[in-house]
């Protein structure tokens, strides 16, 4: 069962890396580990007959977004977290909120797994209802993207523009307006 093995390998890498991302304090490591996790995820995408998404995942996430993160980490060069000063006025602003959040997260996992267990249909093999060709072809994807989802596509383009302008305005130093 090679693909089962591959699946477990990728999943393990993804989950492990993600755990480490939030598990240690150095943002530099976090970024690198997250890249690893993305790589594993793209592996899963390939296994799901979505090679294009897989490559896009690498190009966009690993190749662009993460570089941006890395850039900022290096720019600010603030590798370690500083101890927080809390105001006690808020129940959630308590030092233990971290653990509280972790608890909630585990709770969420339990709930989701349970929910999945409830739905019997999901036990079916992922490829059972359709063949790879129907989802694998880049041509089909492009056609759908530019016909059925044209509006969303344009909207995202506008979104990107706005984000770009916003980022420029925000990151610009005060006084360097001219």
């Amino acid at each position, binding site marked *: 069962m090679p693909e089962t093995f591959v699946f477990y390998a990728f999943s393990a890498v993804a989950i492990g890396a993600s755990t480490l991302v939030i598990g240690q304090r150095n943002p530099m490591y976090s970024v690198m580990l997250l890249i690893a996790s993305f790589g594993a995820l793209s592996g899963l995408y390939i296994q799901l007959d979505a090679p294009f998404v897989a490559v896009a995942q690498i190009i966009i996430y*690993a190749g662009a977004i993460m570089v941006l993160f890395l850039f900022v980490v290096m720019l600010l060069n603030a590798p370690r977290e500083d101890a927080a000063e809390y105001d006690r006025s808020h129940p959630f602003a308590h030092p233990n909120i971290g653990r509280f959040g972790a608890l909630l997260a585990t709770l969420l996992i339990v709930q989701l797994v349970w929910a999945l267990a409830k739905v019997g249909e999901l036990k079916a093999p992922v490829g059972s209802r359709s063949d790879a060709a129907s989802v694998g072809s880049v041509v089909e994807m492009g056609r759908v993207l530019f016909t059925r989802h044209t509006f969303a596509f344009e909207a995202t383009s506008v979104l990107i523009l706005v984000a770009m302008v916003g980022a420029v305005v925000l990151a610009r130093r005060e006084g360097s307006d001219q």
Partner: protein
Amino acid sequence: MVESLTPYIRPATIGIMIFVAFNALIIASAVLVLAERKIMGFMQQRYGPYLVGPHGVLQPIADILKLLFKEELRPKGADKWLFTLAPVLSVVTAFVAFATVPFGAETTFFGLLDEPIKLGIADVNVGLLVVFAVTSMGVYGIVLAGWASNSKYSLFGGLRASAQMISYELAYATSLAAVILLAGSLSLREVVDAQAGTWLGFIPRWYIFLQPLGFIIYVIAGVAETNRAPFDFPEAEQELVAGYNTEYSSVRFALFPQSEYINMTTMSAVATDLYLGGWHGPFLPAEYGWIWFLAKVGVILFAYIWMRWTVPRYRYDQLMQFGWKWLFPASVINLIATAALVLYLDA
């Protein structure tokens, strides 16, 4: 498992291919080291390396040995893991990038094999994107090196590398997209085969004739992506001692130029496949097309070196200006024009 990614070939042959490509790349980098210094010498009216072996052909070997026997230094306060990871990462990405680059038609290696195989490791239906993706990963090696060695020169080098490579990836990808439009496929092999034959019997159907602007943009962006002069800001000797690899020595150091040369080779190979018709050429039977391929790659590599020793380095702001305000718009225009052309021809 996925059909799209399985290059339906026997593991044996894929192993052979990997072996061939790997060694080819290593040799190429060695040759390039020598070629670079020889050509530089020629251009500066010197002999260049001359002592080691006849006309100094063994110079690369000597360099490698020298580097191997150097001491492994790691600066105090450098990040242990990343400092080691960085060069490995860069060289690995450099190698992997070549994985989906086909470099020849079917051949039997002068009858060594009982049945012909396609020259090229993996034939993926999104091969072009894979190349692009892996090369885009290449930046991490440099950036990490710059950050991990905990030195301001290196840090500047890394910052510059990240900004520069992100900026030029845009133009790079856009010029690729134009070719994809023409060929109507993301598979490099199909792109190459789309360029077989000739117009009017004597002009080869290479995309360079359809995409002159695209080709120029691709080459320039490629130079910037590989951090070669005139865009070698990450390691600008006059400004930052040696940029991101200031603190490196011995093998770790050796890996950086290694990966740089491999990246150059990959760039040239991809350029050949995309614009120069790959292994297609006159006079030779398709079986020996890989010779054509090598020749074309060689020409482009020569151009690389030529450029390096001819053109002075930019200023960093000029680099950014050029990348964002000229190269990228030009590539977009090129893309739109190509799209219009394709639409017109199809309609």
